[in-house]
């Protein structure tokens, strides 16, 4: 932006004086300061948490802002083993990875059929999938709890995997149907003429072509599943199988009785660091993947 472009129109807003360049310079500086302040507001609490997790309990209580005198690596090992952060990580992986694989695979197959094969009921099934986006999850919560209980899947990994997959369908099918519709159909026809069967067309041609869409939907679902809280709170009540989010909330509430603040700070840092690393590496794709819903919707 140049000062030229934003120079006020003549005779308007010009009462401040006859030095528009200085005025523009000042307002530009103010705006830059505002942007910098917000960056501090976003980053500093996280930085504070990270460096505080190297402090002793005493330092945390008596000098909240100070840097640690000597880094207490022990905080992290206590968080990992005694506070079970390691176990919670493992539990989260055991649920999220299979669920992620299944949702990308199943929703791609469903979306491909809905996008490419006209048949009676096609629209109905599409709108049935869309209906899931209309309702908030907590409306289903109580019947879902009893259903999962009846199926004997409470406190099981595969039960939670199926539920995660089920609730990820509406948006994934919606997004990928649009994606498959946008792919050229000539390739499909050519492959059939060359003697490929429909399965080969899907796995060898359509899936590789759909890769950008699959990556977006994968990132979107990964973040949603990894950060999910409501469903595991209801369906994973055995504290040995807590997922990361539950474990963290549990630790915070325990802290009112136990007093290992430095361990708790370290635990939150352990959870934040992987997200931070993944985000810094893939931030472009993540921003695209996560906002994709909003922009297509």
């Amino acid at each position, binding site marked *: 932006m140049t000062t030229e472009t934003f120079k006020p129109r003549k005779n308007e807003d010009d009462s401040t004086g006859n030095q528009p360049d200085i005025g523009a310079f000042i307002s530009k500086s103010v705006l830059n300061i505002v942007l910098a302040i917000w960056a501090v507001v976003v980053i500093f609490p996280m930085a504070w948490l990270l460096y505080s997790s190297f402090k002793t309990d005493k330092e945390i209580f008596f000098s909240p802002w100070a840097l640690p005198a000597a880094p207490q690596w022990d905080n992290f090992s206590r968080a990992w083993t005694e506070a079970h952060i390691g176990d919670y990580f493992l539990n989260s992986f055991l649920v999220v990875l299979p669920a992620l694989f299944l949702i990308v695979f199943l929703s791609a197959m469903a979306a491909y059929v809905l996008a490419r094969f006209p048949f009676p009921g096609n629209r109905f099934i599409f709108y049935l999938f869309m209906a899931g986006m209309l309702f*908030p999850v907590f409306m289903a919560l109580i019947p879902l709890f009893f259903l999962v209980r009846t199926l004997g899947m409470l406190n099981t990994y595969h039960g939670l995997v199926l539920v995660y997959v089920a609730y990820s369908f509406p948006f994934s099918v919606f997004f990928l149907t649009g994606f498959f519709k946008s792919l050229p159909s000539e390739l499909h026809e050519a492959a059939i003429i060359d003697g490929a069967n429909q399965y080969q067309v899907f796995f060898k041609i359509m899936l590789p072509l759909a890769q950008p869409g699959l990556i977006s939907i994968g990132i979107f679902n990964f973040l949603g599943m990894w950060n999910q809280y409501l469903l595991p709170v209801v369906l994973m009540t055995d504290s040995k199988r807590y997922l990361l989010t539950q474990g963290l909330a549990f630790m915070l509430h325990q802290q009112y009785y136990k007093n290992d603040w430095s361990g708790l700070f370290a635990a939150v840092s352990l959870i934040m660091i992987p997200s931070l690393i993944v985000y810094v590496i893939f931030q472009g794709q993540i921003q695209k993947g996560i906002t994709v819903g909003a922009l297509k919707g």
Partner: protein
Amino acid sequence: MYRNKYRVIIPFLFPSLLIYLTFVIYPYLRAMYISLTRWRGLAKPPEFIGLANFAKMMQDEYFWNALGNNGVYMIMLPVFTIGLALFFAFLLTQGVPFGKFYRVSYFFPQVMSIVAIGVLWSFVYHPLIGMLNSLLQSIGINEPPVWLGNPDTVLGAVGSVMIWQAIGFFMIMFIASMEAVPDGLYEAARIDGATGWHIFWHITIPMIWETLQTAIIFILIGAANMFAITQTMTMGGPSRSSEVLSTYLYDEAFLNSEFGYGTAVAVALFVIIFLISVVLQRLMKRDTLEY
């Protein structure tokens, strides 16, 4: 080419449909029935009582208290989130120094889980170890409030955290929408002598109107929920002053075994969200600009 197409359609759709119908559609339909029943125990079946749960809700002060708190969030969250996100998006599309850095850092809270954010801010607000109050004390405020322990400040404190984490997301959404506006429109406006502020109101806002509408509905749906952040930071306290409908219905169902009533609250919450979205879409309806 569509010979034997059902040999593809059926195996490709069947597993997805089965999982979806079982775990999503069935519970939603069942919820509508359960909301019309009294169902307390695990042993006894639900007993149909018509609309009695909804009549009870009308008299239930805790229901109104929770709904009122959701109402506060439904005003506070959209106003500040949209206001700041628009402001930052507009500045960052004008090309400022470190623009890329700002986009990346503002968005980061979005990839953290709400629970981790809630724990982080519980520390920040903590009366003894928190950085916020020690900052306030260092600038001469001797008795800063106990942010999460005071009924007057708790909604503001929790709401601010949600605004803090959401701004980056909506900013990125607005930036994408603003960058899709054809440059010619801005050029023409500048030739006509429009200033930054005029350009913002008369070109940017109308051109991104639909995105704005989507954003407001997204935020309202979020403000109607608030489960994870409330459960993490306050558990609805102190003395229900930050309780919202989602935490209330969770407690009614899973702590007090009021499954029928809890489900009725959930259905009421859905109806409220639905009505607000419809009304808002009507209110914000404009002729789409052609370009």
